[in-house]
């Protein structure tokens, strides 16, 4: 069952339309949710590249976000450099650090990589603390709104256009990369390092490349973070933040770029809905401040449930739903002509 090229590329034509239309239709807290979802999706795509495509678990994401954000703080808040210059520089610095961290880390496997990235995270947070102390002190860097050409990005709606355009461009670029020979090499490594090696793929080199690219993307997300929240403080970058990205990548669907968007929407949207529609009920039952705990209970329970029951994430659930009519048709066809059923369902 192969769909027509035109119908297959149709969703991509809708992306610019959606980016233009959605922010115009919603407002208030829904719009800021949309913005944070877009911001999270950039970092999630970066993590998905290294974790979902190349199969390497990293919990250093918050560290690379911190590198991007602090680059923005030092260059923009302190030196007045423009956003469009700081964005690639933040990505570049994160990429360099990512390569330095990754070089020894890609030689170790599995758990050792997880622990190496955890160690990197703590060191990055400490360095960020030291940098902040030496420059601006406990208030952190205060950022001016970014200016692109003659436009100053200050309203939530303008932010939405900027965030989602960036996110869509990065998403499409990574999607193209995943479908190239690089993507195939990464997936071969993910599925079996030994067989990847035996067909001539340089495992450490490709792992390192995935790690570097991922760090660059997450670093750029960090720059966006800094400008969006208009402040940079080392306390914002925690292990919980890294875990949230792991969870987004997983719940959305490991290895699926679209999944990074589903995951961001789910992980940020569920607590948002709880806050909006259930806060009264929860506070009646558990007292003031109970909402945060209930949000975490729901969040944790979803993580456990997804790993156990839907390890391929929302992307795979949606895929099943989309394919359901076709499957029913092929089952019916199989009942009529059992001999060809194997071919039909293959």
């Amino acid at each position: 069952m192969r769909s027509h090229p035109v119908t297959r590329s149709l969703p991509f034509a809708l992306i610019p339309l959606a980016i233009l239309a959605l922010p115009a239709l919603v407002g208030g807290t829904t719009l800021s949710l949309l913005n944070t979802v877009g911001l999270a999706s950039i970092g999630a795509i970066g993590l998905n590249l290294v974790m979902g495509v190349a199969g390497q678990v990293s919990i250093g994401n918050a560290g690379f976000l911190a590198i991007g954000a602090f680059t923005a703080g030092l260059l923009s808040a302190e030196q007045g450099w423009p956003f469009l210059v700081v964005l690639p520089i933040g990505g570049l610095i994160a990429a360099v650090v990512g390569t330095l961290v990754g070089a020894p880390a890609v030689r170790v496997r599995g758990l050792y990589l997880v622990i190496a990235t955890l160690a990197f995270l703590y060191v990055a947070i400490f360095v960020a603390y030291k940098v902040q102390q030496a420059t601006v002190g406990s208030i952190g860097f205060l950022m001016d709104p970014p200016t692109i050409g003659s436009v100053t990005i200050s309203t939530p709606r303008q932010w939405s256009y900027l965030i989602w355009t960036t996110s869509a461009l990065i998403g499409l670029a990574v999607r193209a990369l995943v479908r190239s020979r690089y993507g195939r090499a990464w997936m071969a490594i993910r599925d079996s390092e030994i067989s990847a090696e035996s067909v001539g793929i340089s495992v450490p080199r490709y792992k390192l490349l995935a790690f570097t690219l991922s760090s660059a993307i997450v670093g750029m997300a960090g720059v966006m973070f800094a400008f969006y929240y208009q402040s940079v403080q080392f306390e914002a970058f925690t292990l919980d933040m890294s875990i949230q990205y792991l969870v987004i990548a997983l719940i959305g669907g490991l290895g699926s770029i679209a999944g990074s968007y589903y995951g961001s929407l789910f992980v940020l949207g569920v607590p948002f809905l709880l806050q909006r529609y259930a806060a009264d009920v929860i506070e009646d039952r558990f007292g003031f401040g109970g909402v945060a705990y209930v949000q975490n209970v729901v969040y944790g329970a979803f993580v456990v449930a997804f790993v156990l029951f839907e390890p391929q994430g929302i992307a795979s659930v949606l895929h099943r739903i989309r394919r359901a009519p076709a499957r029913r048709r092929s089952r019916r066809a199989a009942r009529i002509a059992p001999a060809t059923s194997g071919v039909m369902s293959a």
Partner: protein
Amino acid sequence: MGLLVNSVVLASVYALIAVGWVVIFRASRIPNFASGSIILVGALIFTSFVGDGSGSILLPLVLALAATGALAALIHRGLLTPLTGERLWAPTVLLFGLSILLGALASLFWGNQPRVLPQPVANSTYELPMGASITTYGLLSIVVTSVVIAGLLAFFRWSRTGTQMRAVAESGLLASQTGIRINHVTTLSWVIAGCTSALAGIQYGYVNIVGQEMSVLGLRGIAPALIGGFDSVKGVAIGSLIVAAVETYGVRYLGGESQDAVVFVVLLAFLVVKPYGLFGTAQIRRV
């Protein structure tokens, strides 16, 4: 000298946490990232059983260890057994999620106020030579940990079950061929880890307080476990002493914010120089 004594007391808590990591990792190759929340829940269960501290602490202690051991067994049987054979990310993400879930449930059930444990014996300070001193509970913490570690070493060395556990750690497949029930042995290792984690939480609670901050203790078990070799119980003792000393002196000379960073720098150095730790088994990979 005073710092050295402090770091030995700290090491006695870390050693129990790290033993939990090692015992589980040996049996199932799973990093227990929910360790911190198990420590917290174990200590909170103990505070509930102890109440105002009028009775003996022996029964509450046994009940808290049993309850935490049962919780750990439940985690293994209910959540991790279905993931057997999955890639590393599956148990990693699941245990991080579980950790958030347990921490939040603990806050809903026990509230968010830190709890001070009632002291069954008076906490006095003993002067040591060279200007150092140690409190009764610091001393007790060291004694309890030493006994537990020695007991575990003896258990693994001489008991039948302990030998089976070592066999599973060495090769699950070969062990299963001789009729060892791997799943039972692995669950048992989770029970042991649950008990040592609860004990670590209780010891920490007596030296400091019982509160949400304890959930970070779990990850502090990684460095001692890894420096010791990740699959070696005796390595844990040395690893904990090294880590606690690094941490205590780091905080003293670089400030409190460096607590985790200095330890993980030392850990990174070990990863580069001695990736299988001081007493760990080197894993040889053939292509």
